[in-house]
């Protein structure tokens, strides 16, 4: 077994001049390509018994976060379109005012004592995940003059192989900040960029409760190769 090669333009480069934090952190040397070994084909089993799920960031016993409640759902698939069951999906985000519940975030926007901004869910047999949260706010960052991050939710995913590990961000449709954002625009391929943007979904929307957004994620697929691993 092996992993399918990464499609050209689908992934951002490590050296991205428009994103200042890459300047001193990108390696100068190209990575060394290795044939996957058992180490890269296996993966940690991230189960709900070890890592309890939390599918509601917006409300809990005796508390409710400020902001526009939303439901986000989608499927986790491999590149062949096969659903990945039991994928662990971690999410984290700013509050409705654009402030993270994080000591290093000093943006002058109110903290919400009822919003931590961290959740964890697992995909079902069809690859579906779902959680309820509030729509985060945009926030400034100092990358360049008057720089603002588009509204986004951070995602961390564990699939069924180590090489499927992915951290990404989900954006919202129609955000005027998207064309201005160096991080979003580091992805060279336009179609690949657009797949980081969730779509409004009336089927996920719940009447009298919350708007729904759909965000599907594709993790690297495996393919058989002549170089079979004996294990």
């Amino acid at each position, binding site marked *: 077994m092996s992993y399918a090669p990464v499609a050209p333009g689908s992934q951002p480069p490590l050296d991205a001049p428009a994103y200042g934090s890459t300047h*001193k952190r990108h390696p100068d040397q190209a990575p060394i390509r*290795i044939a996957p070994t*058992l180490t890269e084909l296996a993966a940690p089993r991230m189960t709900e018994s070890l890592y309890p799920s939390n599918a509601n960031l917006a409300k809990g016993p005796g508390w409710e976060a400020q902001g526009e409640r939303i439901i986000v759902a989608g499927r986790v698939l491999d590149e062949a379109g096969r659903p990945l069951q039991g994928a662990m999906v971690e999410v984290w985000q700013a509050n409705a005012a654009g402030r993270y519940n994080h000591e290093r975030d000093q943006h002058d926007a109110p903290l919400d004592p009822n919003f931590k901004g961290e959740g964890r869910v697992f995909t079902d047999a069809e690859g579906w995940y779902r959680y309820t949260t509030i729509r985060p706010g945009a926030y400034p960052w100092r990358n360049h003059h008057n720089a603002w991050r588009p509204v986004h939710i951070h995602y961390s995913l564990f699939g069924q192989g180590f090489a499927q590990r992915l951290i990404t961000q989900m954006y919202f449709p129609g955000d005027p900040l998207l064309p201005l954002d160096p991080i979003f625009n580091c992805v060279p391929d336009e179609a690949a960029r657009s797949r980081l943007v969730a779509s409004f979904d009336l089927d996920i929307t719940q009447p009298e409760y919350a708007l729904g957004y759909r965000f599907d994620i594709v993790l690297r697929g495996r393919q058989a190769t002549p170089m079979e691993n004996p294990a």
Partner: protein
Amino acid sequence: MSTASQTAGPYWHLIDFPEWADLLRGDGPNAGIAGERITLLGRVTDGDGAPCADAMVELWQADPEGQYDGAFHGFGRCATDANGEFRFTTLKPGPVRAAGNVFQAPHVTLSLFARGLLSQLVTRLYFAGEALNEQDPVLNAVPAARRGTLIARPEGPGTWRLDIRLQGEGETVFLEV
């Protein structure tokens, strides 16, 4: 086409659970599993030699028998501190079977996520003095002059250090599959 990676950014600590850096924690999945207890530590620095104080380091390894499908849960996560240092407590992995009739030397995979990294950097930690290092297929894919960036040195009993340099002189070898 797989979904594009994006940076974990500076606020990923919302998914930091410091206890995950101790794979042998009393209430954790590996309590009671036998093996050689080790501490793995290192300092992550950037192209100026400045510490990366906001990085997330993830560990992935086999069990002491070199298996990935046994009872041992070989996953950990650690935030670097103000000096850029990470520290894991775990069991030393055994040799892992490779293609052909050979074994990979004992190794731990380290993945780095951080502000300024648009996708993770993946490297391996090997142990100095292991006879299997000489025939390890991944070490042998690395030019000899840079191989040392993957080999941890002992630093006191049961403690191994591997510093990670993201850029410039002595730059760590990063791997891609």
